[in-house]
């Protein structure tokens, strides 16, 4: 058991950062879980090594994980030290989808944090 194990963990964490904790929610489960899938696809693009277990090898070919809102208890099999990056992408992407245009800057900040976690050169 660790932080951010299941799809529900990601949705709950995101709702905290989106300040969307009171039902009825501003962002639906469908929307957030869909954005989690988008975060996984985008992360696969820039950090293929994080999805090593899903790469095609002579021994296996496994599709990238894909979730729907009924999969809330499903495990998100992802390296623990990079799980917050998925949350930042999920939250940032969700904020940028908001058509009121008031949270764009906040959304961009979250997307930037996602990139920083995954790619900032430390050495």
């Amino acid at each position: 058991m660790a932080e951010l194990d299941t799809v529900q963990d990601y949705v709950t964490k995101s709702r905290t950062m989106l300040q969307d904790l009171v039902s009825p929610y501003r962002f639906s489960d469908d929307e957030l879980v869909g954005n989690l899938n988008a975060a996984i696809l985008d992360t696969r693009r820039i950090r293929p090594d994080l999805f090593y277990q899903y790469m095609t090898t002579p021994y296996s070919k496994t599709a990238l994980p894909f979730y729907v809102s009924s999969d809330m208890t499903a495990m998100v099999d992802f390296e623990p030290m990079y799980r917050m990056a998925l949350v930042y992408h999920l939250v940032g992407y969700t904020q940028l989808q908001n058509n009121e245009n008031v949270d764009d800057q906040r959304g961009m900040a979250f997307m930037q944090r996602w990139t920083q976690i995954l790619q900032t050169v430390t050495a």
Partner: protein
Amino acid sequence: MIAKADLKRMMDNIRVRVPGVLDSMIQLEMFNAIDAFLTSSILWTEKIDFPVFYGTKVGEQTIVEPEAGRIFQLQWVHNSNLIPQRMTMPEEGLLEFVDIPSQDDTWTAQVAITCDDPTTREGYPVVPAWIVNKYYQGMIDGILARLYSQPAKPYTSDKLAIFHAQAAASARGRAKGEAAQQNLYRGQPWRYPQNFATRFRGQR
């Protein structure tokens, strides 16, 4: 055969030096670095006995299989009286007769070996323990160089990649020299300078 404790020590060294790297990536590059180390240093050899039969013709072939790993070079062959016999190896592990046996006999081939799939259940390449014990620092340099040279990672670093690549190349050269001298101190202290090297210029 394999030295798990030493490979785990290598993993720990690399985890500390490469922040954010995944264990699976270390193991991926560990295989590459150890393969490069073994093929260029020709450290790991094995003598394999195989039967030969009177009546075999020039150009006929036989197969030899190492205990572990993959054969990449045939070094020499001798018969049961220790007399050298000429053979070639058109493919890895496939020996072709140039000299033919004058009687039924057992010949011995010495081959150079490198690591191969499958790895161990934990994902480590299968390598003799003594090689890892003796040269693990050079292998660490090789793994670090490859990890630092990966593009767009938190640990990407051109400078460190070059630094460790040079250290790894130096370790491979030292290992090759020691293997050629069978670890004999001052066995052949003088070597031709690099500008005498011709084998990379198309010489066969």
